[in-house]
């Protein structure tokens, strides 16, 4: 798994559960407190070991923790760059949903080694979408659920999301868009990320 993904988990643990929690987790998994380098690639096994240990520590199912990671990626100030890059996907939540198929390619434009799961969106009927998330061992589905829930908020849309299958290689997320303009969208100025560089997932 790419260092950016591992580091996202590391920063999530540090920012949400505290530096001590990360120190414990880093030691328990043999990663060390220094953690991951965002630009190196690690064996997939390390990521899953990290998640298993995190679930044990927090006494929560992986699905819940992964969904929290998704929310964290969009809402936390330290991951502001990620929210901005996702917002480039469209001017409305619907546009963003339709841009998801291109997300792995978009990510590769910035970091060629970064491999994200394949995403496939189908519109089942007006306002109802099915997102299929394909990866070798699953886990990205709940992350996408968290990401999309937070993004719906960001766009001011009212959406209901349900994971139909999770933690399997082919995960399915059903999205009901109840009101695209439920609340005012958070502003997204094109120059906003360039003026004051975002902190990144440091």
């Amino acid at each position, binding site marked *: 798994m790419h260092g950016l993904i591992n580091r996202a988990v590391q920063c999530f643990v540090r920012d949400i559960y505290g530096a001590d929690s990360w120190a414990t987790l880093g030691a328990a998994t043999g990663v060390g407190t220094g953690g991951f380098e965002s630009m190196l690639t690690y064996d997939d096994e390390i990521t899953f070991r990290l998640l298993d240990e995190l679930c044990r520590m927090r006494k929560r199912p992986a699905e819940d923790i992964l969904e929290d990671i998704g929310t964290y990626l969009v809402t936390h100030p330290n991951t502001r760059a990620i929210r*901005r*890059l996702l917002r*480039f996907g469209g*001017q409305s939540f619907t546009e963003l949903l339709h841009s998801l198929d291109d997300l792995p390619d978009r990510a590769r434009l*910035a970091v060629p080694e970064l491999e994200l799961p394949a995403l496939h969106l189908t519109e089942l009927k007006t306002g109802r979408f099915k997102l299929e998330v394909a990866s070798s061992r699953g886990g990205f589905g709940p992350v996408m659920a968290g990401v999309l829930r937070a993004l719906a908020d960001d766009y001011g849309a009212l959406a209901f999301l349900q994971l139909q299958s999770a933690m399997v290689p082919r995960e399915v997320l059903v999205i009901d868009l109840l009101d695209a303009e439920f609340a005012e969208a958070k502003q997204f100025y*094109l120059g906003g990320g360039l003026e004051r560089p975002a902190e*990144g997932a440091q």
Partner: protein
Amino acid sequence: MSLDVGRETLAATGQDGETAFLSVLREALDRLMPMHLQLGATGHILHAGPSLQKLRPDAPLAGRRFLEVFELKRPASLTRVSDLACAEGGRLKLALRDAPRTGLVGLVAPVPAFDTLIVNISFGFNIIDAVQDNDLTSADFAATDLAVEMLYLVEAKTAALREWKALNQRLQGAMTAAEQQASSDMLTGLANRRAMEEVLNRLITAQTPFGLMNLDLDFFKSVNDTLGHAAGDHVLRRVADILKAETRANDVIVRAGGDEFVLIFVGLSNPERLADLGRRIIARLEVPIPFEADTCHISGSIGLTVSDFYTATDAELMMQHADMALYASKRNGRGQVTVYSEDLPGIGESAPGD
């Protein structure tokens, strides 16, 4: 639909042909080119696309003279708007005249039938400044304009670059630490041979005068053999302390091997002063060193040379000469200092200054 057909159609409706035609087209042009201008024959702006107008929200552009609002940087020295389309294939380089003086590029298409020019404008490479200065959103660009994709790329690449830089900095730090470890002796913290070569090269390149002293401990082997390696290590650390105390901060002390040391005296090349210093070091080395219940007795032999002896300084030759002087000290009964000279036995083949 060709312009002429459009004109006929509109004329048939009985309206003022030109105005009506342009107003019909206007909506389409605003959508396709939200940063375009329509210019009349007099050089006045007839209409400005919504995104271009957004750059000056409080001052309507329509009605003002094109060259009053925009400074024409290229083609230079054009005064008549009607000439715009002729030079350089209608390509323009512009800047707004008042602040923020955003730089722009433009392309002119004349519409002779209506005595009008359409100028499409874009930010070119100034796009990053422009979106920052003007709070623009994706909606301000036509969906076919690659500006937003470019901004996405710039932002994504900037974020990736930041991560690369952070990684480079951490690697740099690790490298410095590793280099320091590689150039120092773990037991005594003194410099090692590798560091010594670097220092000598630096001094010779800079033509800084220096003294070079080789020191071999005497009777150290018997300390190791009779009292063990722990005692030996203790003695070596004590020797390092003595050498540090007897030298100046910018002199370089090297542990060159087991019980061999090299001292480089930066800027000090007076052989008599160095010989005095050598004798003082030996006297301190001969002070018995207590270790646990035992006492260790050692001494030292020194051979030295200075860069002033040579016209062209050669580190290897100086090391050879310092060694010869050292062996002379050993041969003469140890515990003494010898300054290199041509008269030393066994130097026949390597006379100084060769």
